[in-house]
């Protein structure tokens, strides 16, 4: 059974304007699935719909065989599906440690232990644990955002352009962190503008155009597809 299966999804922000016009999307356990496409193609909207921030108009979103479409975001997080938004993804006025505590809000076990574990896993956060999140660098903030989502030990993590606004080096480093997270057993859906870098770590990818998935293939297939190369890889 797929860890995530989206079928015929139609959804949007207002009653009249549907950003997603019929999306079929599938993720298998252990994968890193890249989602690429031009601005406004509906990549972020897809993640928000899965996370429960937008109610689907039509279609289904299944995880572990259960339809989660239209459920409350908290319910969806409890099912091990976590979303890391592109912007405003940390609590600016709270310290790194307090951010992680909110991340652990749904965790029923020993919270201080798991927070300690998360801090030792990401040394750059350990060094800044008392600092307010707004004082972090762009890369550190993204790491904190992901660490906060990882605390509940999710099966599936939805990342919305984690490398946006980062320098090329920081962006490479961040995708390495994503790769590392995946190796620890978390399935990842990765929306990225930097297709070349994302294809390096992705197992499979989808190209979105105008609210629909148009091309799907393994990372290798996409990287060698002439059309994809011309549009997204610059040659």
């Amino acid at each position, binding site marked *: 059974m797929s860890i995530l299966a989206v079928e015929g999804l139609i959804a949007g*922000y*207002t*009653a*009249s304007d549907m950003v997603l016009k019929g999306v079929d999307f599938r993720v298998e356990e252990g994968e890193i699935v890249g989602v690429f496409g031009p601005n406004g193609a509906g990549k972020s909207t897809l993640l928000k719909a899965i996370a429960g*921030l*937008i109610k689907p108009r039509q279609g289904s979103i299944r995880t572990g065989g259960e339809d989660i479409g239209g459920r409350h975001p908290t319910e969806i997080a409890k099912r091990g599906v976590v979303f890391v938004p592109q912007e*405003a993804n940390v609590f600016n006025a709270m310290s790194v440690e307090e951010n992680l505590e909110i991340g652990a809000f749904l965790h029923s076990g020993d919270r201080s232990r798991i927070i300690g574990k998360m801090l030792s896993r990401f040394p750059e956060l350990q060094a800044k644990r008392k600092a307010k999140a707004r004082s972090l660098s762009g890369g550190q903030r993204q790491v904190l955002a992901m660490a906060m989502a990882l605390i509940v030990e999710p099966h599936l993590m939805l990342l919305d352009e984690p490398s946006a606004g980062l320098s090329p080096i920081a962006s490479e480093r961040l995708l390495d962190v994503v790769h590392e997270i995946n190796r620890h057993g978390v399935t990842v859906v990765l929306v990225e503008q930097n297709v070349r870098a994302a294809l390096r770590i992705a197992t499979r990818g989808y190209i979105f155009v105008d609210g629909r998935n148009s091309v799907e293939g393994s990372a290798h297939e996409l990287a060698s597809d002439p059309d994809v190369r011309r549009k997204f890889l610059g040659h």
Partner: protein
Amino acid sequence: MVNYLIAMLVTVGIYAVLALGLNVTWGMAGIANLGLAGFMAVGAYTTALVTKTFGFSIAAGMCLAVFASAALGILVSVGTLRLRGDYLAIVTLGFAEIVRLIASNETWLTNGTDGIAGISGPWRGQLSPVQFNWVYLGVTAALLAVSLLVCQLLARAPYGRVLRAIRDDETLVSVAGKSTFRFKLQAMAIGAGIMGLGGAMYAHYISYISPDVFRSLISLYIFLALTVGGTGNNYGALFGSLVLIALLEGSRFVFATVPAINAVQLAAAREMLIGLGLLLVLRFAPEGLIPERPKIFTRAATDITPRN
């Protein structure tokens, strides 16, 4: 009985003028001006003082009332309009309270809490009370018509469209290169001026004013009138005032029939009714009885758009 009905119609007319003033600021420009009672008081006191002390004509007194209120409208908002709307709401409410404080304490000017009596009315001396009521109904109708005309011209002109655009999405307007500040300041001045006119009309009709008349509660009355009628719609302001007076007067008679209710309880029950009325209308009929116009943009989008 006829006399009572005319008196009520005059009151409806005065409230309608106040509601039109509120409609310019809140209804069209979306500025939460809670200082209505204050602007009304400034208008009333201005005309009372200049007609009584300096022997100005009623017409001149009313003109001065409009200018004085408009000037204060500018003064109050010049520092706060650039700030968030909720701050202006508080500042204007504070302004109204301070006007009342001044009216209560600067006895040399306002005669303090005793108020000012014997304010002239048009031909009041030569007419019987009933005739005066008829005449004043005419005056009220004329002034209401003028206010309505001004507001309608305002609403239809490109100026009105800019105001509504500011109300619906201020950032969009400022991105489009319009100075929202100047437009809002003008709306405040016009709105406050009309409120001042309403106060002046009240003073010349009742012939007596005191600080107690201008409690902030009256601002809430007018908010109710405007919301019932249809915020943003000038005719709604008219119609809503009629509903408000019907409610206020009707409740006076109905509650008075309840046995063993004392005067304080009667007043409390009526004020409660106004508060409750506004809450119910806001919830169940937010567009009012005469909606502004069919909505082109749905506001539902704001429900799901995350805040920054």
